[in-house]
């Protein structure tokens, strides 16, 4: 039981670290993609391609890389960041694009600088969409993190891989079930957060 708790904690920790980094990089990237269409399109294409790499292959690619790769929690976090980036960048972009252009025009005409427009109007109005992206990223990351055990990343995947090796269904399920519950829990929780912001922003 204590091992289960420890592994669950580990699982959540690498997901939390990865999603936090992805938010810190993804929201500015999405904002940039909105301002600079051409360059933004390229950035989006790259995150799109990253998303299509099968997760086991991704870990495989990371093992020989210096600094970001190798074995352990580090390549696991790097892989999860890469997967989490796309939904966050894309949802930030969508959230910004959905803002009524007249609202933006009014803000500009009243004398807001670009920075003030971004912080006072654009990001608050895009928040529900951004949270939706964070939700998708988190759920995906919780799932992909089970595979991180293959490169020694720890987490609930450790139990699954051990169970597979020992052909022990109960051991597999003891990793798989909590991982599934975590994903569902994150989904439910972040959906609530998303609704809360949408209500506050006057959309719901």
């Amino acid at each position, binding site marked *: 039981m204590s091992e289960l708790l420890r592994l669950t904690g580990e699982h959540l920790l690498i997901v939390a670290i990865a999603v936090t980094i992805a938010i810190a990089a993804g929201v500015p990237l999405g904002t940039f993609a909105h301002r600079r269409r051409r360059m933004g399109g390229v950035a989006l294409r790259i995150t799109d391609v990253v998303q299509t790499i099968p997760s086991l292959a991704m870990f495989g690619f990371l093992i020989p890389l210096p600094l970001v790769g190798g074995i352990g929690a580090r390549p696991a976090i790097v892989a999860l960041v890469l997967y989490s980036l796309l939904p966050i960048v894309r949802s930030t972009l969508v959230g910004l694009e959905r803002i009524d252009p007249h609202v933006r025009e009014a*803000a*500009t005409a009243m*004398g807001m600088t670009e920075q003030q427009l971004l912080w006072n109007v654009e990001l608050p109005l895009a928040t529900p969409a951004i949270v939706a992206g964070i939700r998708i990223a988190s759920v995906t990351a919780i799932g992909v993190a089970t595979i991180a055990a293959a490169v020694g990343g720890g987490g609930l995947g450790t139990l699954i891989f051990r169970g597979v090796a020992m052909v022990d269904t109960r051991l597999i399920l003891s990793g798989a079930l909590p991982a599934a519950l975590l994903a569902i829990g994150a989904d439910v929780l972040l959906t609530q957060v998303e609704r809360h912001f949408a209500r506050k922003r006057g959309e719901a």
Partner: protein
Amino acid sequence: MIEYRDVSVLRGGNAILDRVTLRIGKGERVAFLGRSGAGKTTALKVINGLIAPTSGDIVIDDRSILHHTLPILRRRIGYVMQQPALFPHRTVLDNVATVPRLLEWPEERIRTEAGRLLELLELPVASFGARFPRMLSGGQQQRVAIARALIAAPEIVLCDEPFSALDPLIRAELQALFGGVVHTTPTTLVFVTHDVREALRIAERVIVFDVGRVVVDTPAAGFMTHEHPLVRRFVEA
């Protein structure tokens, strides 16, 4: 004072504004009248720099708009559009407080001024201040937009058909309210409309645009009897 010096705006080879030269004096109330596509909205938006002239210059208070810092200049220019375009995530009071907060007024002064203005526009703060835009009717939203444009006592107020999306009864009511508020201030008003009666009700000078040019510039009092064929068509419509 607002001066257009040979201002042209080109879009894809077409002249939206075609060498417009105009002077609008301090405190003047001017209507830009014209059919859709005549260039009147563009003529309005070059004043607050939402559209940059392709050639020519806009001079505000003896300084070219190129030498004004646009956000600073815009805080002195009220702007009302056809759409209220309120910030949906902010209350009525916070919407009205936008420009004063940019100007860093003390909160107390903001509350006093917002209260006074909303009262004039028949949206008492006590019952409307904390509401969100989605909880208001179209006419009420437009009144908030007017309060938001007027609160910092702007030297210039620009209006782009602010009442044309409203139904006729509410439009008349708002024209009267707006006229009442604006006529008590020394602000320069530029009001775009395609409605002759509205132009004459609000302005003391009417400038008629056609295909990007000023074709008539007359005191409102002389408008109904002006002989220009476009004016005749407006009057007889």
